[in-house]
C-alpha cells in the first residue's frame, strides 16, 4: 500500500528539517562572531586539547624568556665586573705598579705604588661585591651575604674573607661553597631524575662563586734566583686579591725615603712568588671570564631560540583556533541561502489543499 502523506506529516518532516537547517546556520554564525574554529570541547575534543597544550607551552616559554633576560643581565654585570678587575685593576694598576716598583721607581715612589696596589685590592673587593637587583652577584647561592670582606689574622695583618671565611685557609666549609648551585628554567627541559633530584643538564646554573674566580688556599713556589740558587717560598696565597693585598702591603711598608724593603731577606723572594701568582691569578681570571662570556652567549642564543619557539607556538595556536575568514563567511552565506530556501518552500507547502479548490 502506498504510504499516505498527511498534511501534518509533511509539516512534521518540514519542521524537523527546517530546525536542522537553522541549527547549522546558528553554529556557523557563532563561529564567525567569535572568530574561533570551535567554541567548546564537544565540537572538537582533539583540537581543544591540543590548543590548550600549545597555550600552556607558550605561557611557560614566555616565562622562560623573562628568566633568560634576567640571567643575561646578571651575567652581563658579572662580566663587566670581571673585565674591570682584569683590565683596570689587574693589569693597569697592580701589574704596572708592581713593575714600576720593581724596576723604575726608587725611594718614596715605592710606598706610593704599594698604596696604589692596596687601593686596587680595595677596589677589587668593592667591584666583586656588586649587586644585581637585591642580591650580590658573586656570592654563589647566598646572595644576601656580602661575598668579600676584610678581616684580620692572628698577627693583625689584613686578610681577605669570603663570606666570613678566610680565603687562604682551606676548610671543608670553604670548599663546600664551590659546589653551590641555583638552577633556573631556561627551556632546556627542566626535569627530575628517578632519584627525585634535578637533572643538572636540564636547567641553567646561575650561581657565580667569587671564590672560584679568584682562587683560594695557599701553595708553595720554587724558583731559581739570579744567583742560580733554588728558592722555595711557602704559603703563597692563590687568591688574586690576597696577592694584591700582600704585594701592596710589602711595597707600602718600604722605607718612604730610601725605598728599602722592610724585610730585605725574605721580601724579595716573597715578591717574586707573589708576582708569579699575580700572573697566574690574572690568567685564571681571564679564563674564568671567557667561560662566563661563553655561558652568557649560550643564554643569549637560547633566548633567541625561545623567542622563535614563542612565535611558532603563536602561529600554531592561531592556525588551530582561529577561523579562516574567507572560509567561514562562504559557509555562512551558504547556510543562510539554504535556510532561506527552506523557508520559501514552507509557504508553498502549507498553502494549498483540495479544499481551496472546491466551490
Amino acid at each position, binding site marked *: 500500500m502506498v504510504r499516505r502523506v498527511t498534511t501534518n506529516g509533511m509539516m512534521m518532516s518540514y519542521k524537523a528539517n527546517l530546525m536542522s537547517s537553522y541549527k547549522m546556520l546558528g553554529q556557523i554564525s557563532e563561529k564567525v562572531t567569535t572568530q574561533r574554529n570551535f567554541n567548546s570541547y564537544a565540537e572538537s575534543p582533539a583540537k581543544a586539547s591540543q590548543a590548550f597544550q600549545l597555550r*600552556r607551552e607558550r605561557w*611557560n616559554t614566555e*616565562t622562560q624568556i623573562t628568566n633568560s633576560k634576567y640571567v643575561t643581565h646578571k651575567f652581563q654585570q658579572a662580566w663587566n665586573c670581571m673585565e674591570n678587575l682584569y683590565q683596570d685593576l689587574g693589569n693597569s694598576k697592580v701589574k704596572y705598579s708592581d713593575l714600576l716598583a720593581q724596576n723604575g721607581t726608587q725611594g718614596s715612589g715605592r710606598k706610593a705604588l704599594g698604596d696604589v696596589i692596596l687601593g686596587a685590592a680595595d677596589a677589587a673587593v668593592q667591584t666583586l661585591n656588586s649587586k644585581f637587583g637585591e*642580591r650580590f652577584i658573586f656570592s654563589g647561592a647566598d646572595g644576601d651575604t656580602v661575598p668579600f670582606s676584610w678581616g684580620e689574622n692572628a698577627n693583625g695583618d689584613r686578610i681577605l674573607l669570603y663570606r666570613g671565611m678566610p680565603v687562604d685557609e682551606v676548610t671543608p666549609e670553604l670548599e663546600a661553597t664551590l*659546589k653551590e648551585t641555583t*638552577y633556573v628554567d631556561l627551556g632546556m627541559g627542566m626535569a627530575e631524575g628517578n632519584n627525585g633530584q634535578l637533572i643538572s643538564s636540564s636547567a641553567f646554573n646561575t650561581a657565580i662563586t667569587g671564590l672560584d674566580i679568584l682562587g683560594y688556599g695557599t701553595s708553595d713556589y720554587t724558583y731559581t734566583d739570579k744567583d742560580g740558587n733554588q728558592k722555595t717560598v711557602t704559603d703563597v696565597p692563590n687568591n688574586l686579591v690576597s696577592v694584591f693585598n700582600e704585594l701592596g702591603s710589602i711595597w707600602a711598608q718600604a722605607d718612604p725615603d730610601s725605598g728599602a724593603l722592610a724585610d730585605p731577606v725574605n721580601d724579595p723572594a716573597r715578591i717574586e712568588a707573589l708576582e708569579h701568582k699575580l700572573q697566574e691569578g690574572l690568567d685564571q681570571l681571564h679564563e674564568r671570564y671567557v667561560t662566563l662570556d661563553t655561558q652568557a652567549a649560550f643564554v643569549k642564543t637560547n633566548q633567541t631560540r625561545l623567542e622563535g619557539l614563542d612565535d611558532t607556538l603563536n602561529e600554531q595556536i592561531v592556525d588551530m583556533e582561529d577561523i579562516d575568514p574567507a572560509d567561514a563567511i562562504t559557509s555562512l552565506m551558504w547556510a543562510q541561502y539554504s535556510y532561506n530556501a527552506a523557508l520559501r518552500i514552507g509557504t508553498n507547502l502549507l498553502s494549498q489543499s483540495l479544499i481551496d479548490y472546491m466551490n
Partner: protein
Amino acid sequence: MIEPMSTISTFSGFTMARLGIMASQKAMEVTGNNISNINTPGYTRQRLEQKALYVGGADRYASQFDVRVGSGALTTGVSQLRDPYLDIRYRNEVSNVHYYDGKLSVLEDLALIFDEVGKGTDDNGVIEAGLSDLLEQLQNMNTEHAGTAEFDSAVRESAKSLVEWFNEYAGQLDERLATTEKNLQEKVSRMNNILHGIRELNESIKKAEIANGAMTEDERRQGLIGERGSQALELRDERNKLIDELAELVDIDVKYSDEPIGSGMYVEKLTITLSGRTDAVLVDGVYGADVSFQKVPKTNANGDFLDENGNIVADPADAAYIDDPAYKLHLSALTDMRGEVIGPGRKGSTPVDLNEMDLTSGSIQALREMLTRNGEFSTQAEVNSDPRASTKRGIPYYQKALDALARQFAKVFNEANTFDPNNPDENWVYEQPVTDPPVVQDKYKDYVAQSGPLFSSEADGDNPDGITASNICISNKWAHREVSIIQTKKESEMKQLDPNDPNSQWGPLSSANSNVAHLITAMQTDYDYRADDLGDLVNGTLFKPGSYFKGSFHGMLTYINEVLAEDGKSTLEKLENYSAAAQDLAVSRDSVSGVDLNDEAMNLMQYQKSYSAACRLMTTLDELLDKLINGTGIAGR
C-alpha cells in the same frame, strides 16, 4: 407453470432513502469532526462504519423465490484508524530518544562548568590559566628571588585564586546534582500523574464501552472493531497521548486484552508493564500503581545499620529508613481511583521494588544514571548491579575526578613543603635516629617551623588530609605568613645564620632555590592518578583501585574535559540517530492516523453527492408513490 415473482414492499424505499440520507449526514459530521480536529494533538482520524442492511431470516410472508434486495445502509458506529504496531515501535524509539536526551542535557550542563574553551583572559582558560599563572609565579620566585617574602606572597595569591576556582567548580557541580535530583523527582511525580490519568481514563472508557459497545466473545473473536460509543474515541486519543508521554519517561509494554464484565460480554482492557520486567505492572485496567523512591536502611561507611540518632543497631528493621541514594523505584500495589487494592493473586497485588537495571531506557533511567554513576570510581557492589557501571560517568564521577586533581595538587605541594621523617634525604632536620614522633634538632627549629602544609582541607586549619575540590584552601599558617615555601631540603645548602654565635639557628643559603625548582618540575611532571587515592570518598570497595590516568595537573584537567566531550559527542550522535528514527515513525503514525485535508475534502464531496443522491431518491420515490396513490385508478372519477 407460473413463474414465481418477488413481492415488493410499498414503503420500504422510503426507509432506504431515509437511511441513505442519515448515513450521508452522519458521514459529513464525521468528516467535519476530522477537519476541525486536524491540529488537535494526538487526534486519530475517525471513520463512519457502514453496513448494508439486510433484513433476513424467516418471516411470515417470506418466499424462497423472493429476490432479495438490501434495505439500505446502517451506520454501525464510528471507528479510529490506528496501527497499534506503529505505536509500539514509536514508543520504543521515543524511550531511547528521551534516555539520550536526558543524559545529554546533564552532560551539557557539566560542559558549561568544565569547558574552558574561549573562556578566561585571552581565551587561556580558567583553571588552565590558574595553573599556568601559578607556574609563572614559581618561575619568577625561582629566578633569583627564592626566600623573598614578596615573591612568596605572589605565589600564595596565585594559589589562592586557583583553589577558589576549584571551590567554585565543586559548588556548581553540587548545585547541578541538586537540580538534577529535583528534576528526577519531578519526573517521577509526573509519572504518577500520568498513571493516575490513564487509570481514570480506563475507567471512563470502560463505562462508555459497557454503555455502548460491549461485545460478546464471538464478536471479539471475529475481530470486530469500531463497535464503540463515540465518546470513548476521544478518551482513547487522550489515553494514547498519556501513554506516549509515559513512554518518554520509562520503557513500557502496552497490551490490550479482553475483560469479561459478565453475561458473556467483554470489554477491552489496557495493561502497561515495564518492558524490562513483566511483574512490574504500572496499570492494569482501572488499577494503577504509585511510584516512589525505595526506602533503604541507613548505614555508615562500614555497613552497620544506624537508627535515627546515629547509633548502630544490629537488626535492619530497627534502623532509620532514608530514600535510596541510588534512586531505585518502588511500585506500590495497584489501586483504583477509590483506593481499593487489586484482587489478590493478580499481578500487581503486591508492591514491587525495582532493581538497578530494570529500567532500560527513558528519561528517568537517564537521570538516575547521571545522578549515581561513578565511572572509574565504581564500587564492586555497583558493578554487581550494573555490569557496565564502570564505563558510565555521571555527575558523581566528575565530582570525584575534580577532587582527584585537587587532592593530587595539594599532596605534591604539601609534601614538597614538609620534612618527611621517613625519607633519608629529608630527615636530617630531626634528631637521629628518628623517633616517632620525630624531634627537630634545636639548630633547625626555626627553619622547620617555616615548613608545613601549604593547602588544607579546613579553612581555619592546616589539615592536609581529606582534601577535595570543595574544601581545598590555603592553609591557615601560609595565609598568615607563619609558613612559607621553603627554599631547600638539602643539608648542603644550609648555613649558620650568625657565624659569630655558635648557638645561633641554621637557615638556608639566601639564594638557595632547589625546592622551588622542584615545585616547578612538579607542576609539569606526570602523576599516576589512582582510583584508591579517593578511597575515603567511596562507599565500599573499589572495583578497580588502580591507575586510570597518568599526566600532569594540566593534563588531568584536559582529560576530564576530553572524557566529557567524547561522552557528549557520542550521546549526541545516538540521540540524533534515535530522533531521526522516531521522527520517521511519527510521520508513519501520522500517515495512518492523521487527518489529511485532501482526503477529507474528497470525503466532503463524496458525502455531499451521496446526500444529494439520497434526497433525489426520496423525491423520486415520492413522485412514484404520488403517482400510485393519487394518480392510479382515477379514471372515470
